[in-house]
């Protein structure tokens, strides 16, 4: 099947009718994002859709729809002309009618094929024609959207489908089934006959019991083996996936740890650099930073006051002492004799002596007017005076300072001095130290915040790079890896044990079979049956072996073809070797190995893409070989992971591969330095011999209005 041309009419951005013709080799359709590349691919997909009768309004050109008046109609039509032992055509279309300013009705869906192999063009059912020329299995290996779909071996049934479709092994399946049936039937006949042989009946019965037990054992072990194989396969798939992302997982763990640490740092530094300065001024007495001078003023003042007070107190005391001395001097007697104290005799005695005019001290009379009488009167007078003075004196001896406030202040001054004072003096240094510390912590905080942001950015970048893997999976994947490997190991050990068990059981089985064979039947016919059965068993074995060998040969061939393309696609680059590994569960995996036998578990994007493409080319080649028909390969943007150089090499090689290939891509576009607009890289295009179309949005479109978008195509070469 070779595609010759396609017409796309009113299909989404393909307004009106657009036609592409295809080369036998490479056809490139180049356009930028939104220019209609994927729409081209999807137009083909729509045409090849044999499952649904899709006449969705979604596929109608918005521009065409907007132009229609109510009641007017037009059609969406995709038709493909191709060669398949003669020219064929497939046409899929439906009509759409505007029923309202916003609504359209779609109808008259038709999928028609035209066969021109005979002299006249014959109309056929489109679905049938398509399945006859380009069946869905082959389509699966021919059309690829994006890079991620290229791995055709990503599911367990892929190999079987491939083998069934592209090799003759399928026929072997029938032979194997047939010979197995023969063997079983003949065995049943022999056993039945032997059972009836009276001589051997007992022996046959024993052997049959053994055989039944053995068969059950074998069945159990086989089931167990299958389970273990399945488990190993599942674990391997998971581990493989994890391995592919191991680097990402490790990087994630690393980033995660960093983020955790930086978060902790951040909150620690935040706590250390946050301070309620206003509270600090009061609670920690920072407000007293400039107080030492005031305090000293206070202390000096109190000290002076205290001195002054003592000075005045002392002066007063001295004055009083002098007063007292003067008085004492004035009171002394003539001749130096010491007079009796003023209080001897007392007031009553004195009054009595005066009244009686007798001095009772010396016993002599002291008549009124006498000297002695006057003396006594004076003495009494003095007594009364003294008594009065005494009362006065107590008042006079009252302290000079009636209050003690200065002493109170002095105590306060002492209290605020000494250690307390040192604390206040130290405040200035303490505050400045503390502020410096906070500044440093703030710097640390800024750095931690910056680092945290960087780590978060890095994480975001990582998550973008590992698209399809959630953060949770990255996190879990790392933890799962170990457990998964362990479980896989356990399953492998168990499988080995089971294999040994199976070998033993097989031995027992063949022993039982030998014993059966060794039974000498009494009847000659039964002997003949026995021989027929042995022959059929032998034939069955041969077919089983042949089937296995054929699969191996098919894979070897596929691998060889693949490597031929892989070598071409990776000219002048490291490539390694592609191996298609058949696994215990019957599935296959494409893997890349270095020439020294090391598995390259996580090849780069371009390497992976070329690897899968090589397999596709190889499959396509084998298809051609087996079906004696060529099939096109159609790719939508398969090279997004390629660098510019790789891209150039890739197209040069594809250009020279003898295979119809249609690639829709935005490669080979570059930005014009002067106009800043995208244009084709003519230099690179000139190196290619293939057919090249450029598709682009017709100018003057509104970025917001879909109905202004239409794809234009130009054939460049």
């Amino acid at each position: 099947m070779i595609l010759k041309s396609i017409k796309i009419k009113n299909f989404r951005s393909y307004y009106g009718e657009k036609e592409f013709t295809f080369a036998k080799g490479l056809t490139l359709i180049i356009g930028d994002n939104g220019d209609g590349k994927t729409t081209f691919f999807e137009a083909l997909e729509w045409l090849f859709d044999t499952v649904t009768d899709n006449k969705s309004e979604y596929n109608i050109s918005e521009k065409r729809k907007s132009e229609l008046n109510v009641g007017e109609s037009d059609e969406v039509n995709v038709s493909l002309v191709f060669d398949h032992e003669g020219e064929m055509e497939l046409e899929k279309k439906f009509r759409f009618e505007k029923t309202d300013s916003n609504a359209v009705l779609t109808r008259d869906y038709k999928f028609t094929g035209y066969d021109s192999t005979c002299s006249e063009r014959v109309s056929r059912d489109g679905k049938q024609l398509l399945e006859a020329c380009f069946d869905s299995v082959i389509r699966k290996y021919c059309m690829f959207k994006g890079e991620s779909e290229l791995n055709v071996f990503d599911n367990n049934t892929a190999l079987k489908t491939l083998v069934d479709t592209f090799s003759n092994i399928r026929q072997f399946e029938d032979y194997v089934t047939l010979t197995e049936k023969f063997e079983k039937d003949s065995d049943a006949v022999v056993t039945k006959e032997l059972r009836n042989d009276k001589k051997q009946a007992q022996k046959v019965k024993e052997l049959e019991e053994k055989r039944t037990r053995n068969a059950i054992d074998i069945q159990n072990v086989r089931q167990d083996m299958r389970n273990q194989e399945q488990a190993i396969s599942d674990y391997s798939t998971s581990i493989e996936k994890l391995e592919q992302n191991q680097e990402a997982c490790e990087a994630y763990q690393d980033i995660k740890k960093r983020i955790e640490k930086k978060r902790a740092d951040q909150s620690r530094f935040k706590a250390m650099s946050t301070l309620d300065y206003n509270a600090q001024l009061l609670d920690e007495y920072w407000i007293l930073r400039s107080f030492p001078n005031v305090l000293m003023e206070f202390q000096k003042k109190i000290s002076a006051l205290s001195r002054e007070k003592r000075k005045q107190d002392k002066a007063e005391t001295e004055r009083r002492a002098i007063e007292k001395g003067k008085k004492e001097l004035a009171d002394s007697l003539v001749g130096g004799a010491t007079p009796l104290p003023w209080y001897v005799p007392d007031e009553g005695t004195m009054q009595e002596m005066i009244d009686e005019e007798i001095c009772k001290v010396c016993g002599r009379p002291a008549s009124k007017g006498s000297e002695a009488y006057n003396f006594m009167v004076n003495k009494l007078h003095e007594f009364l005076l003294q008594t009065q003075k005494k009362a006065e004196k107590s008042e006079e001896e009252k302290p000079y300072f009636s209050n003690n406030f200065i002493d109170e202040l002095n105590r306060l001054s002492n209290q605020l001095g000494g250690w307390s004072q040192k604390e206040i003096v130290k405040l200035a240094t303490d505050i400045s130290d503390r502020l410096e510390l906070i500044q440093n912590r703030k710097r640390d905080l800024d750095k931690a915040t910056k680092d945290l942001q960087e780590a978060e950015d890095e994480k975001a970048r990582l998550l973008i790079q590992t698209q399809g893997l959630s953060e949770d999976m990255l996190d879990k994947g790392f933890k799962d890896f170990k457990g998964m490997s362990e479980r896989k190991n356990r399953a492998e050990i168990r499988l080995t044990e089971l294999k040994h068990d199976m070998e033993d059981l097989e031995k027992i089985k063949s022993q039982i079979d030998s014993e059966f064979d060794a039974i000498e039947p009494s009847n000659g016919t039964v002997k003949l049956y026995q021989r027929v059965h042995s022959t059929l068993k032998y034939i069955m074995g041969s077919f089983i072996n042949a089937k296995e060998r054929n699969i191996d040969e098919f894979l070897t061939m596929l691998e060889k073809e693949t490597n031929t393309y892989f070598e071409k696609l990776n000219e002048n680059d490291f490539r390694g070797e592609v191996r298609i590994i058949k696994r215990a569960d019957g599935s296959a995996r494409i893997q890349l190995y270095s020439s020294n036998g090391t598995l390259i578990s996580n090849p780069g994007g371009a390497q992976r893409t070329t690897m899968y493409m090589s397999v596709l080319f190889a499959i396509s080649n084998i298809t051609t070989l087996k079906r004696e028909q060529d099939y096109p390969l159609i790719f939508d943007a398969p090279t997004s992971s390629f660098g510019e150089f790789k891209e150039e090499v890739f197209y040069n090689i594809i250009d020279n591969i003898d295979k119809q290939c249609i690639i829709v891509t935005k490669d080979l576009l570059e930005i014009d330095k002067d106009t800043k607009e995208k244009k084709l890289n003519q230099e690179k295009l000139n190196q290619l011999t293939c057919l090249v179309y450029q598709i682009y949005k017709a100018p003057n479109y509104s970025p917001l209005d879909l109905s202004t978008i239409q794809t234009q195509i130009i054939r460049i070469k």
Partner: protein
Amino acid sequence: MAAERLYDSWAGRNAQWEIKYEDIIKTLCDYGKGESSLREARGKLFGAGYELYIMAFFIGLYFNQRKPLLADNTKRKGFGQPIQYWGNIESRMGRKAYPKIREYIFAALIARTDIDFIALEKGDVTLRKVVDMLIQTMEEYANCGFKFIKDKIEDDPNYFYKETAFLEVFLSFEANNQEELDEEPESLD
């Protein structure tokens, strides 16, 4: 005569301030709103109103500028708590009491008020008169401080919402004269 202490007489008083500063006190403190535990939630810088008064007082003190209050009693106001409770009760999270601040304020007032203490000692001047003078000094310093704060706010209403605003004011005053400090303090006996 009962041994009445000067400090106690002073601490039993209520310092007054001009009513025109009430808005500032209400803005920056939990003043007049009841319990002070909601300071953080209200975005207040201080708890009780006296905290801002202490700020204002020390600002006036360090500037060594006094500003007499308006004589009109109707234009003045006092806090609910006499000085003796200032700095005592601090129920808010992360804060602690700072009762010693009162003694420092008192010492500053003694140092900066021109009082004839000898006359006081002799009983020639009444205690009440002396305490009046101390309170006056206190009010005048604080009044000056309040004016300073109000001026700043008038220039920039958010001035004091910068976390270090008050600290910076206090850092702008000279800390202390190291030479003087190193001097042997005068004998106090």
